[in-house]
């Protein structure tokens, strides 16, 4: 608009007005994407406060009532005697144990791949990448047979152990160390007589907080949202994690499974179950984000 008109005069002026147009542009781009990401979630939150009738007949972004929310909650928890809370408990157990193992395994591995030279380093990097690219559908059968061979079918280890193998995290750590931590820093510590473990413990680990938070977070989410592995591995319904539980709720909603024949679960209750399922992930995200602080390394080494 007017910007092009007085561009010449703007050049000479101090910077703030000149930067107004790009700022508006940035603002509106971010706003558009915010609507894109948030609107469906907002809809979901509101859906949980409505009756099935309101969901179809009412305005999409209207609020139902607290009372309906309570009713939906009661109906949801009534499904197979509090099954939803039970599923949440299972998910937490599986995700947290695997998270701990993942961190203990992936962070040192990623560090070693990035900061030390050892035989087989290259092989390890390549095989990790190849394994990551393998479609999971076909891996399930071999995994099942393997877990069966060591008699772990039916135990929670049948999913916790495969979860704990988290190559994505190893790579995150690897890239973090190669791009963000200068090797001279470690060399200096070694010169000072630090043992290799000491270097890792006292130099690398404190610098790695952001990536530990990142790996921990992604590992937690991956475990929490994994559907297929527990679906195949766990034989008992009271071992189900929440994702598999939501799948089974879904098959009790007539719109998604017309032949179910009875109305066991209505769509607002499914929406509520979904919200319950994602809440822990969001809490962990907020927690992890605190550790992704900026500028941690600035000035740590002199170039």
């Amino acid at each position, binding site marked *: 608009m007017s910007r092009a008109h007085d561009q010449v005069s703007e050049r000479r002026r101090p910077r703030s007005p000149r930067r107004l147009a790009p700022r508006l542009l940035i603002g509106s781009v971010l706003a558009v994407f915010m609507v894109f990401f948030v609107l469906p979630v907002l809809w979901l939150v509101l859906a949980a406060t409505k009756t099935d*009738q309101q969901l*179809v*007949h009412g305005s999409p972004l209207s609020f139902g009532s607290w009372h309906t929310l309570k009713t939906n909650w009661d109906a949801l928890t009534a*499904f*197979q005697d509090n099954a939803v809370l039970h599923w949440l408990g299972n998910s937490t157990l599986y995700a947290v144990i695997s998270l701990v193992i993942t961190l203990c395994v992936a962070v040192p591995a990623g560090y070693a791949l990035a900061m030390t030279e050892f*035989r*087989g380093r*290259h*092989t390890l990097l*390549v*095989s990790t*990448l*190849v394994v990551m690219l393998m479609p999971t559908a076909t891996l399930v*059968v071999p995994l*099942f*047979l*393997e877990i*069966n*061979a060591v008699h772990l*079918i039916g135990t929670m280890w049948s999913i916790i152990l495969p979860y704990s193998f988290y190559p994505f995290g190893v790579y995150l750590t690897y890239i973090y160390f190669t791009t963000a931590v200068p090797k001279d820093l470690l060399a200096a510590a070694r010169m000072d007589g630090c043992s290799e473990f000491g270097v890792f413990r006292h130099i690398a680990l404190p610098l790695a907080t952001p990536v530990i938070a990142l790996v921990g977070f992604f590992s937690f989410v991956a475990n929490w949202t994994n559907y297929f592995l527990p*679906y*195949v591995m766990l*034989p*008992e*319904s009271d071992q189900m994690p929440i994702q598999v539980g939501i*799948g*089974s709720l879904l*098959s*009790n909603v*007539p*719109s*998604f*499974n*017309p*032949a*179910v*024949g*009875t*109305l*066991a679960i209505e769509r607002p209750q499914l929406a509520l179950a979904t919200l319950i399922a994602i809440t822990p992930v969001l809490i962990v995200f907020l927690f992890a984000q605190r550790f992704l602080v900026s500028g941690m390394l600035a000035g740590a080494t002199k170039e």
Partner: protein
Amino acid sequence: MTVNKPSSSPQRAVSRRRSALLAGCAATVLLTVSACGGGTAGTTDKDGFAQAPQKDGALTVWVDATRMDAAKLYQKLHPEVKLDIVSYDGNANGSNYLQTKVQLFNRTGKGWPDVVFSSQNNEVSWAVEAGFAAPLNKGLVDEATLGRFAKGANDVCTVDGTVYCLRNDLSQAVLWYNAPLLKQFGYTVPTTWEEYQQLGEKVAKEHPGYLVGDAGDSFTPEIYLWASKCGANDITGPKSVSVNTTSEACTRMAKLLDVLIKNKSMSISGVFSTDFGKNKADKVLLMPGPAWFGGAVFRDTLKTPAKQIAAAPLPQWQGDGSPSTGNVGGGTWLLSQHSTHIKAATDFLKWVTTDNAYQGEKAPGYPAYAPAAEAWLKGQNASGYFASDLSALAAASSQVWPKWGSGQFSQEAIWAATVKPGITQGKSIASMLPAWQDAIVKYAQSNGYKVSQ
């Protein structure tokens, strides 16, 4: 692998090869270990199959959430039986959960459930081949009991004369209608498809917006074309099917649907769609549909008030001497060949499919076992929701046209993927019958069926 950049040292290349070798060795060891799983030692041939040594212990029963009540009721009435009730998705939407698990159990040689419910009718199409389903009419279940199931109810369970599962419920199609509305408009219930079409044309003119049916669901062909004796899905043997979608029986029903879709007295959005719920819920005058429409669609989904919905027999083609109807779903119960509690499993199976305590009084669907169905109908009539008695259901239960089978491939999925998008785009169903045939043939063949056209 190609990811490797040219190796800088020869040692590395050697070590890489060596690690590949090691992994290979480990894989071989694993294979050997797992191959020892499935031993069949000590079986005895009885009741038509090799039975594993029988043991005490809990009976494992897999049910979906709806059938959970049945298993719990059994436990309550039989406290002496040790039951391990596991809920799963009931194979809904072709999830193939049961098949997946049985394949894995077959590899590991353990883990099978003793009795399992499936919401699908086609389990036998793989469960016999997989050596999972036990034959039931060779000693486990007596002929008298089997004979009291509705005629043809266990056809989906039967392979070469042997019954491998018991039907839980029937989903025979009838003509649902809104009795007070029909009276108000001054119409009568059509008894032939010709009358039905005329009524649809009248409704389109006199009361535009009102509906005489819906053709937007994936199970649409099972209501209309099945009832019209269209030979789209004649399963003639364990792995053979005859497909002919362009016979007179198919085309005349397709043309009828096309006429009514065009004049908008037949909806194309599907009864569970939000469009139907929002804009058409109170516009239903007539609705051909399966037995479970009464509760699941009208009462629960569309919230039609009580004393409005009634059921009549599905129309027939004029001059057709043998009345026929279609069927949409209905579950089955299977018993595992590998069970080590066959006696307890059989008792449970018989109870859950025939006993009035569940099927007659509690079951949500129309029981396949005729004596239980009588009790069930009494209960429905007493509930006061329907505007008529539901005797039309009883009559229809033995009229399901037998030449539409349950193959391993899903007819509903094929219709949904090939015909439904065309209907949305405004193509006529009659013009898509050849494409539909083509799709059925391809799916059947890729599932290993021999197809005759």
